[in-house]
Each structure stands twice: as C-alpha cells, then as structure tokens.
C-alpha cells in the first residue's frame, strides 16, 4: 500500500498528553536535549513509544515535535513524562569545543552577515 498522509491533529492534543496540561518538571524547554535510555518499553502508551522511537540519538524537544508533527507543548509534556519514568535522560553536554573554534565560528558568522 502506498504511503498515507497523516492528519497530525486527528488525535487531539489532550488525548496525546492523557489529560496533562503542563510538563511534570520545570526547566524543560524546546531546546533541551534528550536521549533515550535503554529501558524496556513495557507499559508505555502510544505517544511515548512514538517519541522514544525517534530518540535513539540526542535530539532537542523542538525536533521531536517537528518530526512527529506534535504541538510543542505536547512534546514537552510527553518528554517530561518519559524523563520521569527514566526512559529518556538529558545527556551531559559532550566535551566543549575549543574556545578558539568557537571564536572562529563567530568570525565566520560575522563574515557571513
């Protein structure tokens, strides 16, 4: 069967968050980077599984929302639920790039403008 176009709003936002209207934890923003922990999927609902499926590598919440066509707040709520259950974690930032590299990037960007 050919690919189907999906209506992203067919399942309403409150159903996706199972009635939660705010993230269970503070401090999460759309730019927070998360990554899947190796945990069994047992007991997770549909939305959580969909999110986990694309979180193999570190990914920011905004991108999760974009890839799954979710309203950003829905992504935040689902992700915070998964952080609570330990299915996702926030990886510590990898080794910082060298300050000189950042300076060069800055210079490059200035040159672009």
């Amino acid at each position, binding site marked *: *069967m050919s*690919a*189907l*176009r*999906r*209506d*992203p*709003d*067919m*399942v*309403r*936002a*409150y*159903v996706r968050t*199972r*009635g939660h*209207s*705010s*993230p269970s934890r503070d401090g999460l923003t*759309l730019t927070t*980077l998360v*990554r*899947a922990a190796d945990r069994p*999927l*047992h007991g*997770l*609902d*549909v939305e959580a*599984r*969909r999110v*986990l*499926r*694309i*979180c*193999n*590598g*570190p*990914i920011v919440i905004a*991108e999760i929302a*974009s*890839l*799954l*066509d979710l*309203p*950003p*707040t*829905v992504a935040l709520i689902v992700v915070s639920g998964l952080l609570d259950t330990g299915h996702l974690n926030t*990886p510590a*930032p*990898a*080794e910082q*790039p060298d300050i000189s*590299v*950042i300076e*060069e*990037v800055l*210079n*490059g960007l200035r*040159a*672009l403008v």
Partner: protein
Amino acid sequence: MRHETAVVASVGLAAVLVVALGLAAYFAWLSAKHRAQAVHWQETAVAQDLALVALLSQGLETVAASLQSTEPASAVFEVPDCLAGSDFVENLRILGEEYVADLHRVQGATAVSTRQQVEAEARESAKAAVKAFATAMVSTGINVSSEVAQALRRHHGSAVFATLTKIDHGVQQMLHQAQSYVVLAGGLLGQRWPASTLTDVVGAAQGAIPDYARVHPYASDRAVIARMVGPVKLILSHLLDNAARYSPPQTHVEVSAQHGHHGITLLIDDAGKRMSEEELKRARRILDGRQGVDILTMEAHPRVGFPVIALLARRYGMKVVLTDSNRYGGMCASVFLPEDLLTTAAAELEPAPRPARVAAPAPSSPALTENGLPTRTSRQPVHAQQQASAGRRTSTEPARPAVIGAWQQANRQARGTAAPPQDRAGDTDVHPDQEERPLDS
C-alpha cells in the same frame, strides 16, 4: 201452457235479477274496500315519505353531530304513529345504523391515513431541519477545531495549552453530537480524513468523549481506508462513551483487537454495570436494525448512540455486537471491520528512527524532495533550512568551509554519534496490558 211458460219466465227473470243484484252489491263492496285500501296505502306512503325525510334531515344530522364525539350514535328520527313497528321503519333503522357504522369506519380510516401523512411530512421536515442544523454545527465545529489545533502550535505555555485543550475538548464533544444527529437525519459526516491507522482512529474517537483519559488506547499499524475513518471513529466514540459512562470512574475502558482472516474485530471492554436483559434486548434490536429511532418521538435526552451505530454499521458493512459479562464482569462491544475496509499502513506513517542527517547532509536528494515520495510536511522546514543554509554556504564568498566544517563537527560531537537506528517500538501493535492479559473471550 202459456201460463206455465210465463211463470217459468218470471222465475228466471227473478233469478237473474237476484244474481244481478248480488253481483252489484258484491262489486260495490269490493270497490269500497279497494277505495279504503287505496286511502290507507296513500296514508302509509305519505307516512313513509315523512319517515324518510325525518331520517334524512333529523337522523343524519344527529349522526353528523355525533361524529365529533368518540361515541358512535345511532340515527334518531321521528316516526309517524301509523308506521310504528312496521318493517319499513325497521329497515330504515338498519339503514341508519349501517350508515353510521360506515361513516365511522371511513372517518377512522381517513384519520389514520391523514395522521400518517401528516407524520410523514412532519418527520421529513424535522429530519431536514435537524440535518441542516447539525450540518451547520459540524461545519462550524470543524473550523473551530482546526483553529484550536493551529493555535496549539502557535502559542506555547502551559496556561494557554490548558485553556485551549479545554476548549478543544468541548468542541470535539459538540462535533461528536452534531455528527450523530447528521447521521440520524440521513446525512453524511462531512469531515474528511486521510486513511489512518487504527491507533489514530481509536485516539480520535477517544477525544470525543468526556472521560477520554480512562480509555486504555489500542495501537495497531493496520489502517482504515479514508472513507471509513469518520464512520469508524464515530462508532468507536459512541461505544467508548457508553463504556466509560456506565463503569466506575476508577476503572479503565480497554480497547483490544482480534486480527481475523476476514478482518479485524475491535473489542471494547468495560468493568461497569451490565445491561439488564430488557435493555440488552432493546439495544440488540436497535443494532440489528429491527428497531429504528423516530425523530418525532425523541425524549428530552435521547439516547442516540445505538441508532447511530446501527445506521453507520449497516451503511458501511460493519458489524457491531454487544456481549454481556466479559472477563471484567462488564459489557463488551465488538466492531467487526471487514478486510475490504482496511488497508496496510505504510511504515512511512511514522518517521524513520532518526534520519541520518548528520552522516548525509546532502539535502537535495531527489528521492526526498522531487518525486513525491512520502516526505512528511513536518520535515520540509528542516530540509528547507538545510537547503537555505547550503545555498548560502555556496554563494557566500568569504565563508571558510573549514570554519563551517568545524562548527558542524562540534555540533555532531555534542550530539554524539547517532546510534544505528534500531526499531525500539516495533511492537507498537501490542497493547501494554495485553502482554499480561491475553484475550480470553
């Protein structure tokens, strides 16, 4: 000799005379008798005329007057004394009674046919009114829900989200009601969906009921063909609503499925009150189509669920069956979706686990952008950004590729090497609870 002859002659003459006199007297008597009879008949005829006129004027009038009342009256009319007790009067009475009986019969038949006609017309106009109203509600509801969905993407923040989802929940319930009445009034749902997975259809049905959070959703990659999405959603939402409404608030409503040879049967189980024998019979009569719902005899809070389900199931070839006493002691409703209403959902419905964007930054891979391969709309902005940045990168003279490369490198390191995509959620069509509670009914 002559004397003898004379005597004989005179005696004969006398005899003749006597006979003649006798005859005369007899005829005179006969004539008098006939005359008297003629007078009597004339009188009788006049009396009969009078009686007939009396029947026509008085008797039929009393009958006509009695038609207003429900009690059938007999024709009452004056009878001349001379006719009292005669056959003629008796026959007139019988005539009058038959007339009354006929009149009442015709009146009854006319009343019934008139009522039927008036009711049919009233039903048609009520249906048309309900349909027009409900269709307008559906159309407004669809617009509002689309607006709300867009607003949910546009505005961030928990407070806005809470308000918008509350509004949305109300709108979805209103849409659900309006669509039910459209179906009852013989209309079409008026909402188009693309072919969708059962997961999405169940999720959409969930959204239309007040107690959506108590439904344990079901996940399956099997999809319902486009024109069936609306009907299946409406049927499911009525069944879910029924299940949630009649079960204790701390219990769950469970959706599961049997993937059979001829199609899929969705099962909706609750742990609530069972229907009484009579209610179950009534519900089954409605579901079998043996008992419809009359739009003219609806109560203040009509239960339209089962009639709507029955109409949709019949129209689209599904089968809905109610079973009492499932494994939770509650009710189980099953919806059989024949294979020709289903389709196999493509895996492309879900984005692939992490596209290998870092490894293959070439954004304008023709397979993704040009030839209509199922690129999801949500990815387009990403590609667009990549294309834009790529375009700028090539066109800007002083940019040093080494710097951009270093930046990308750092970015890649920060993200860590993308793990090879593994299908973590490959078992999405297994209900979490089903793993422990295999379907035994």
